[in-house]
């Protein structure tokens, strides 16, 4: 009987060397998709700050490489579509709430200080005193219903130009159970550019993100994703900041309508967009773009209107570049500089201009420019009678 020597010893030696070599090749072939505390998240190697984006708001020290971000976004898209959800990025100030520093409050607003809601149980409150930040904040009417219903269709993110402490304090008030935003609270400390907001720090495909913000200029690179909100001015300081010298809602002891205010309106729009995006057609869902859905929906609002502007733009200004012209076109209207029988609306601030008088004679609609702005905010063609123009008194 020959003894078969089992070459155990030599085999295991080989395998140990193999393991060691495998370790070092792992480090060499590692794609370094991201880093935590400057170490690669796969191989642990110390990395210098290369390309990629820091995601400090998710966790301190986390940074992801561009390729990894693309991969995560694509994976997220599949997950989202399976759950029939899209992304919604929400601004805080003047969109969901209005804050004021205590020192800026007027005597007529003093009464509010005794009416604040408890910070221990925020779920039913709307007016809060934040002593340590020396400010008060008022939630916009309808905001809690808005968040609850929107969260069923959208994965939501907060993106504010406030600092991180402010962002987290507000998130705590709006979402005490952390069921709406989770760790998705982005502040100005997390943005990659000064004075600009960007979708580069949002882990969602740009074709699936909608943005709600009152400031268009913060989103110059993502205007097609933006739904512009009418500003919520509750406190006097907020009116003052934007140049309105009138009594504020707080001083008038009044507030925006809950059921007919901006949040209720935009919730309907969000539902419509969600519906249109996910409706059962033979289209491939992965190829859909929410920006296209938004654009198409907007273009329905003034689709049969042909608009001519009269003395609304400065004389040497290129009409097609004016904000109002572009807004009207986005709403689906056709704009023109010349009058003709197909014109339906003349927009002017003075009923005495040549074009205005033509409109009155031809029984065309003569409206104030605010008709276009209001239509833009309220997502419906408003009655022209509410925006009639009077003759400007001659000086």
């Amino acid at each position, binding site marked *: 009987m020959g003894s078969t020597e089992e070459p155990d010893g030599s085999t295991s030696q080989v395998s140990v060397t193999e393991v060691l070599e495998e370790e070092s090749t792992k480090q060499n072939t590692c794609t370094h*998709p991201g880093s935590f*505390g400057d*170490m*690669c998240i796969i191989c*642990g190697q110390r990395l210098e700050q290369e390309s990629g984006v820091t995601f400090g708001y998710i966790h301190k020290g986390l940074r992801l490489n561009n390729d990894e971000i693309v991969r995560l976004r694509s994976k997220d898209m599949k997950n989202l579509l399976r*759950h029939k959800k899209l992304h919604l990025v929400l601004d805080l100030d003047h969109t969901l709430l209005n804050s004021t520093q205590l020192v800026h409050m007027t005597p007529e607003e003093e009464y509010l200080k005794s009416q604040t809601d408890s910070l221990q149980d925020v779920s039913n409150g709307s007016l809060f005193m934040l002593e340590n930040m020396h400010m008060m904040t008022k939630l916009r009417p309808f905001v809690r219903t808005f968040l609850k219903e929107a969260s069923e269709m959208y994965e939501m993110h907060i993106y504010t130009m406030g600092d991180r402490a402010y962002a987290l304090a507000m998130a705590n008030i709006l979402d005490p159970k952390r069921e709406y935003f989770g760790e998705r609270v982005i502040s100005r400390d997390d943005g990659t550019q000064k004075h600009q907001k960007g979708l580069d720090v949002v882990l969602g495909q740009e074709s699936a993100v909608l943005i709600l913000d009152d400031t268009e200029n913060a989103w110059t690179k993502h205007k097609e994703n933006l739904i512009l909100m009418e500003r919520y001015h509750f406190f006097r300081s907020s009116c003052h900041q934007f140049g309105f010298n009138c009594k504020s809602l707080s001083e008038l002891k009044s507030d925006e309508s809950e059921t007919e205010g901006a949040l209720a309106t935009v919730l309907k729009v969000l539902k419509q967009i969600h519906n249109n995006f996910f409706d059962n057609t033979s289209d491939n869902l992965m190829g859909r773009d929410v920006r296209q859905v938004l654009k198409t929906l907007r273009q329905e609002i003034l689709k049969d209107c042909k608009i001519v502007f009269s003395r609304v733009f400065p004389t040497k200004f290129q009409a097609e570049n004016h904000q109002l012209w572009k807004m009207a076109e986005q709403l689906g209207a056709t704009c023109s500089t010349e009058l003709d029988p197909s014109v339906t609306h003349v927009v002017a601030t003075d009923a005495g201009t040549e074009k205005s008088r033509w409109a009155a004679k031809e029984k065309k609609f003569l409206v104030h420019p605010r008709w276009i702005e209001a239509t833009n905010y309220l997502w419906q063609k408003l009655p022209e009678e509410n925006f009639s123009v009077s003759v400007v008194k001659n000086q």
Partner: protein
Amino acid sequence: MFFHIVMERNMQLHPRHFGRNLRENIVSKLMKDVEGTCSGRHGFVVAITGIENIGKGLIRDGTGFVTFPVKYQCVVFRPFKGEILEAVVTMVNKMGFFAEAGPVQIFVSNHLIPDDMEFQSGDMPNYTTSDGSVKIQKDSEVRLKIIGTRVDATEIFCIGTIKDDFLGVINDPATA
């Protein structure tokens, strides 16, 4: 891993602390200065266990402060690459999960989580096996292996993996 080592530090003391309670003052200042700090070499100082020796004080020129060299014993915590640790999960998201082992923050990327575990989003985001038998969520206890460590003044960052044998969930909080 924990170590019990001897360290030395030069303590500077203001003359107001001199007198009967000099030694007590030195020790309490030492504790305040050192406990809870990190150093790249030793790791996180958990607690001072004893004073070995306090040397002769040297008066500094021009100020009146006195420097005492103090030798003390302390317990330090320092994770090492390749070490196996147990940690508590603090956050779970689509990129992986974050866990804590005392002062140490550990990140386990989804690349280093076994392939049969899928991320489930929702109220309590988690990683679950296809048959639902194993789940990693907030407050789960996991055994992981350290792939890399980095120490700064107050914190220690680690990269971990649970892709090897015998790593993963130790304790499911749902059934605990």
